[in-house]
């Protein structure tokens, strides 16, 4: 029996629409639960005051500071390294066994569970290099963790820059490096930025790797050698040890909101960049 093609079309369209809505629905549900449970406890004072009694009372200011610095510093470490690797792989080498090995390594790095990064960071940065539980140890560990994301997204973005533009740049007497910095990177910037944003999201929401390397001190970190507690870790400890579910959810609200703000800012920046170069 022949299936009516128009009916098939309708069913497929309906099914796909449902799937798309379902995905968005889950996101909305998660955000809604967190907001309903946490939003009543969010005040300016909560954000800007110090925690008391293990976080049962008071605010989360040190965690906000710790999270911001961990996010920014990780990106500051990982971006040059990751984008550099991507440039090397796409522009400075031909496909060979070497590039395949590097790519395989990068992909393997992406597949390692974050707790393993945590243990590695603990053994290597905290103990071996004697950096202790510190913002620096945490930053270095998280940088390595987000490196694969940055490399892969940058590589894809660079590859999608039309080959013609490289030719034009060379024909106008640009060197390879000038071509990379003035033609390829500006065109690839939106894609690279996406990778950076994903990485910031991962860095600020990471718990396992951070607890092992940055520790969970509730004091305000004032140097990169200080221990600290990110919002994600704070949430985890408050909830895990049953200290205060209200404060835990309120922390989650701040965390989710900051990720949202970062994404919106990145989106805005990306559009400005695209507008400038097209």
């Amino acid at each position, binding site marked *: 029996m022949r299936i009516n093609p128009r009916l098939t079309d309708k069913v497929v369209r309906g099914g796909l629409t449902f799937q798309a809505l379902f995905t968005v629905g889950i996101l909305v549900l998660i955000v809604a639960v967190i907001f309903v449970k946490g939003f009543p406890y969010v005040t300016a004072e909560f954000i800007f005051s110090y925690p008391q009694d293990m976080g049962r009372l008071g605010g989360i200011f040190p965690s906000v500071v710790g999270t911001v610095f961990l996010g920014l510093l990780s990106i500051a470490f990982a971006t040059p390294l990751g984008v550099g690797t991507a440039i090397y792989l796409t522009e400075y080498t031909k496909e060979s066994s070497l590039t395949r090995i590097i790519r395989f390594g990068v992909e393997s790095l992406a597949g390692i569970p974050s707790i393993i990064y945590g243990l590695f960071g603990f053994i290597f940065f905290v103990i071996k290099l004697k950096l202790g539980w510190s913002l620096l140890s945490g930053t270095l560990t998280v940088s390595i963790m987000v490196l694969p994301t940055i490399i892969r997204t940058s590589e894809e973005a660079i590859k999608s820059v*039309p080959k*013609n*533009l490289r*030719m*034009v*740049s*060379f*024909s*106008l*007497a*640009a*060197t390879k490096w*000038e071509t990379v910095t*003035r*033609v390829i990177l*500006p*065109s690839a910037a939106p894609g690279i930025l996406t990778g950076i944003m994903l990485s910031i999201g991962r860095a600020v929401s990471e718990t396992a790797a951070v607890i092992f390397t940055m520790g969970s001190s509730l004091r305000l970190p004032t140097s990169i050698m200080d221990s600290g507690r990110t919002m994600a870790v704070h949430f985890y400890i408050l909830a895990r040890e049953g200290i205060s579910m209200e404060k835990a959810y309120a922390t989650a609200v701040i965390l989710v909101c900051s990720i949202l703000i970062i994404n919106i800012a990145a989106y805005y920046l990306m559009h400005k960049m695209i507008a400038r*170069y*097209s």
Partner: protein
Amino acid sequence: MAGTKIRVRDLLVSYGAKEALSGIDLDIYENHVVGLMGPSASGKSSFISVINGMINFEDGARVRGKIRIDGFGELSGRHDHVALRKKVGTVFALPIPLPRSIYENVVFGAKLKGVPRSELNELTEVCLKKACLWDEVKNRLSESALKLSGGQQQRLCLARTLALRPEIILLDEPCSGLDPISTAKIEEALSELKRDHTIILVSNNTKQIARASDFVAFFYMGRLIEFGPTERVFTNPEDKMTDDYIRGKFG
């Protein structure tokens, strides 16, 4: 007779086992337009990419023979490509503006070359005028180059090449995607440009070669079949194949 700007002797270009050009001897005179014509795969574009060094980006390409460019020296494959391309500018078949403003497109190469900032505005005007584009864009230099029409984009590409003040300009079928009016504007620009530049114009269009060039070289299957003053070649070709090609019997 003007001096020889490019002297090519026994040029052979091959991609793997396939020969794209062989046994090419050709002298290109200074301050003239030399047209290269021939059917597709006749080796015209390979010739161009040897002169501007772009052939090195092709996988498996091999070049043999002697090419001497007056004021630069012998091409060797190991020569300084950046220095070569300051002397030899190229306009490609398809207009490919950089995704920037019109102004930034024109000054791209000049900036890299180190032309002082204070001279860039004047340079932009001069080059756009030479490319017969100035009047159309003078009030919107900061707009994106991608907003221009195809014909305007191609003239922008010419202006951008001129901003490097090259001695030689290679045009690889620059009008293949353009309408007759844009084509006429490019040809108009060329007739002025040859006073200061040596120009090699590749075209599939024999009429364009007849109109715009002073000398013409006819390539077929990787060989140079005939070379001479355009008027002589078009009225009294020495080779039967040239005659057939001009008459449109093949190609």
